[in-house]
C-alpha cells in the first residue's frame, strides 16, 4: 500500500518547511523510520522520516523548495504499484510547493457553509442559499466502495484536508494530549502522522517506544514538575504595581539596573586555567552564567515567571543564553545550570552555540528557561540593555571586559572591569530585589574561586 510522504510539522510553530536535502533517491528501498530528507523549520534543521516501507517512488519537492505543512512531497509504494492517482492528486491539491494557501482556504470556507467572501462572482452567488442544505459531509460520497477495494483514490472535498490553512498550531487528538500528559511526553517533540500533521495515539505510543522526549528531556515538562516551583498568589499591592506600571510602560514594565564589576580576578583565573591546559579553558560568558546560576539559587524571586494571575518562583534554574545566528537569535537553555560545574557549562554552552548556528537545536533545547543572559562583550560593546523574554522576569546584559583606571583605597589602579545591566520586569522584581541579586552576582564574579569550589 502506498504511503504518502507529507511535509510534517516538525516544530510547534512550523507552518512550512524548506527541503534542505534529500537523503534518499527515487528508486531507493526505504523502511519506516529511515531519514528521507532534512527539512529546515522556522527554528532548526530537522529530519523527516519515512512512515511506511517500500520504494521511494517519487519525489515531488526539490531541494530548496519550501512547502506548507501537509503538502505531499513524496510517495513510498511497492516497486510496481500504480501511484499515478496519488501523484496527480499532489498536482491538483498542493503542487507548487511555494503556492500560497489561499486556494485551499477559499475552498474550505465554501465547504464549511460560510458565505463566499466579498467577490460577487456569478458562479458563487448561489452559494449562500445553498449553504444551509449543503453542510460539510464527513462520509465519502456515493457510490460505495466494496470492502476489498484498493486504497482510496483522493476523495472529494473535505475528505483529507491539506495543510492546516490557518496556521502553525500543532494539532493533536484529545486522547493524544491526555496520553502525552500521562506519560510525561512533550507534544512539541513529536511529529504527528494524522491528517494535517495531527498527533494521534499511535504517535504517542511510537514516541514512548522510541524513548523520544520522555520525561525530563521535555522542557515544558521540566518546568511543570510538581515541587520544582512555588506559585505566589498576587497580593493587592502586587496587582496594583503590575497594573499601574504596565499602563505606564507597555506590557512588560521594565526597569534597568547597571553595575560595574571588577573582573580582574576572574580574568586572572581564566588565564591560570588556560595555562593548565586547553581542556580547562572557560570564557567570561561561562563565568557569568555560573555566577548568575548560583545567584539565582539564592534569589528565587528573580528566578521567576510572570503568569498574569500569579508569579511562579522556580526551584530549578534553567538559564538561557542568547546566541546570534545568521538571521536572528535563539536562546538555547542550560538546564539546572546551578548544578553544573564551570566546565560543564563551558562545554555545554559551546555545543549549544555551535548547533544553534547550524540550526540543529531541538525545540526542547531552546524552550523552558527561567532566566536569560545576553552577552555582546565580544563585539566590543561595553554596556547595553536587553529585552526581557516573557514570561521570564529578568535578563542580564553583559558588556565586554576592559581595562579601566580605578581609584581603590586612595590609589589609582588599572583593573579589568565588566559592566552588566539587568532588565527587570517590575511586576515581579522591585528595584531593591534586583539590586540585591546583582550584589550576589558581583560577589561571585569578584571572588571567582567560589565558582570553582
Amino acid at each position, binding site marked *: 500500500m502506498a504511503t504518502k510522504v507529507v511535509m510534517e510539522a516538525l516544530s510547534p510553530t512550523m507552518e512550512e518547511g524548506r527541503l534542505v536535502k534529500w537523503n534518499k533517491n527515487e528508486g531507493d528501498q526505504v523502511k519506516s523510520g529511515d531519514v528521507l530528507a532534512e527539512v529546515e523549520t522556522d527554528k532548526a534543521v530537522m529530519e523527516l522520516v519515512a512512515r511506511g516501507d517500500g520504494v521511494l517512488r517519487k519525489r515531488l519537492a526539490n531541494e530548496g523548495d519550501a512547502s506548507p505543512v501537509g503538502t505531499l512531497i513524496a510517495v513510498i509504494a511497492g516497486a510496481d504499484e500504480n501511484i499515478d492517482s496519488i501523484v496527480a492528486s499532489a498536482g491538483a491539491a498542493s503542487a507548487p510547493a511555494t503556492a500560497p494557501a489561499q486556494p485551499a482556504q477559499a475552498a474550505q470556507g465554501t465547504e464549511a457553509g460560510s458565505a463566499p467572501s466579498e467577490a460577487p462572482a456569478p458562479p458563487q452567488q448561489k452559494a449562500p442559499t445553498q449553504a444551509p*442544505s449543503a*453542510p460539510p*459531509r*464527513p*462520509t*465519502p*460520497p*456515493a*457510490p*460505495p*466502495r*466494496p*470492502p476489498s*477495494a484498493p*486504497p*482510496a483514490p483522493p476523495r472529494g472535498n473535505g*475528505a*483529507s484536508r491539506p495543510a492546516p490553512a490557518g496556521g502553525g498550531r500543532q494539532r493533536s*487528538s*484529545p*486522547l*493524544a*494530549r*491526555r496520553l502525552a500528559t500521562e506519560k510525561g511526553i512533550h507534544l512539541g517533540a513529536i511529529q504527528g*502522522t*494524522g*491528517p494535517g500533521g495531527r498527533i*494521534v*495515539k*499511535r504517535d504517542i505510543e511510537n514516541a514512548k517506544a522510541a524513548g523520544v522526549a520522555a520525561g525530563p528531556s521535555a522542557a515544558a515538562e521540566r518546568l511543570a514538575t510538581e515541587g520544582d516551583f512555588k506559585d505566589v498568589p498576587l497580593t493587592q499591592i502586587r496587582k496594583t504595581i503590575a497594573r499601574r506600571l504596565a499602563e505606564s510602560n507597555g506590557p512588560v514594565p521594565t526597569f534597568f539596573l547597571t553595575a560595574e564589576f571588577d573582573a580582574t580576578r576572574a580574568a586572572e583565573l581564566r588565564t591560570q586555567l588556560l595555562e593548565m591546559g586547553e581542556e580547562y579553558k572557560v570564557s567570561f560568558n561561562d563565568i557569568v552564567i555560573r555566577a548568575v546560576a548560583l545567584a539565582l539559587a539564592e534569589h528565587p524571586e528573580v528566578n521567576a515567571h510572570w503568569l498574569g494571575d500569579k508569579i511562579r518562583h522556580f526551584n530549578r534554574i534553567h538559564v538561557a543564553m542568547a546566541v546570534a545566528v545568521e538571521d536572528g537569535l535563539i536562546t538555547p537553555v542550560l538546564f539546572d545550570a546551578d548544578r553544573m560545574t564551570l566546565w560543564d557549562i563551558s562545554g555545554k554552552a559551546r555545543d549549544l552555540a555551535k548547533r544553534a548556528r547550524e540550526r540543529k537545536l531541538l525545540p526542547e533545547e531552546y524552550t523552558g528557561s527561567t532566566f536569560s543572559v545576553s552577552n555582546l562583550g565580544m563585539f566590543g560593546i561595553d554596556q547595553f540593555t536587553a529585552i526581557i523574554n516573557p514570561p521570564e522576569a529578568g535578563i542580564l546584559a553583559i558588556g565586554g571586559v576592559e581595562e579601566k583606571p580605578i581609584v581603590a583605597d586612595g590609589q589609582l589602579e588599572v583593573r579589568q572591569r565588566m559592566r552588566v545591566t539587568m532588565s527587570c520586569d517590575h511586576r515581579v522584581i522591585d528595584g531593591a530585589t534586583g539590586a540585591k541579586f546583582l550584589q550576589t552576582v558581583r560577589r561571585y564574579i569578584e571572588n571567582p574561586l567560589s565558582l570553582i569550589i
Partner: protein
Amino acid sequence: MAVLTYRDALTQALREELQRDDRVFLMGEEVAQYNGAYKVSKGLLDEFGPMRIVDTPITELGFAGVGVGAAMVGLRPIVEFMTWNFALLALDEVVNAAAKMHYMSGGQYKMPMVFRGPNGAALQLSAQHSQAWESWLAHIPGLKVCTPGTPADAKGLLKSAIRDDNPVVFLEGEMLYNVKGEVPEGEHIIPIGVAELKREGDHCSVITHGKMVLVAMRVADDLAKEGINIDVVDLRTVRPMDVEAISRSVQKTNRAVVLEEGWEICGMGSQVVDFIQRECFDDLDAPVLRVHQEDVPMPYAKNLERAAKPDAGKTIAAIRKVMYLD
C-alpha cells in the same frame, strides 16, 4: 432455543401479552381479518376474537385517538400503523396527546399504549414510503422509542413496551420481518433503554440501532478478515439512550462511527455524537464520523436507491478513516 423470524417473534410477543393481560388489545388497518399487512398479527383474530383484534378504517389520526382514549380509561392498546410513513397523519395524537397526557393531567392519566409498525426503507418503495422516523419521534419528551434489530430483541422489547405505563413507539424493520434468529421461549424481557454489545473488538466502536445492526455485523465480519476488530453497540432503544454503553465502548476503542438508516441532519447519530463528545472527549483519537442515508428523498431507481442508502462499504470507509488507515 427456537429459531424464529423477526415477524414470528413479534407475533409471539403479542400473543403472550394478549394472553397475559386482557386489557391488552390490538387495533389497526387490516390487522384482524387480513392477519396484518405484514402478517404480524397472523392467527390472533381466531384466538382472541374481534373485541381484542380490531380492524379500523383507513384513518390513522382517528384510530390513534381512539387508542389514546382507551389508554386513558385503563385499557392497554397496541396501535399498528401499516407503515410509519402513514403515521405522519396521526402525529398529533402521538405527539400532542399520548406523549403529554400524563404530564398535562398532573399524573392523573397513565398512557400504557404502544404505537408500532414498520419503519425505514424497504426496496423501491420510493420517496414517500422509504423513511426512517426515529429521530422525529425520539425528539419528543414523553415517548419511549424502541428500534429492535434482531428477532430476540423484537420479542423482548415488545413485551416490555406493552407492559410499560408510558406511550412507547415501536419501530420495526420492514426488511427485517423475514430475518431469522434464536428467540428464547416464554418470559423473555429486554428492558427498555439498555443497549447490547453485539460484537466485541478493540479498534473502533460502531454505534447503531434497528436495521443497521445487520449491516454493522456484516462489516464486523468483513473487517475481522483484515484483522480489524470492532465493537458493535446496538442501542436497541434510542430513547432513553444507553449512554453508559456508548461511553464504555468509545473509552475502550478511542474512535467511533455512528451508523443509522435515516438522514444526516438532526439524525439519531447527531445525538450519539453529542453524547460522545461530552462523555468521551479525552478518549477520542479521531473525530467521530457518521454513516447515514444521503441527504435526498429516497430515489426510486434501483441504482440510485442503493447509492443513497447507508451500507457496509460506506461504513468500512468511515471506520478506516477514523483509524487513520487511509
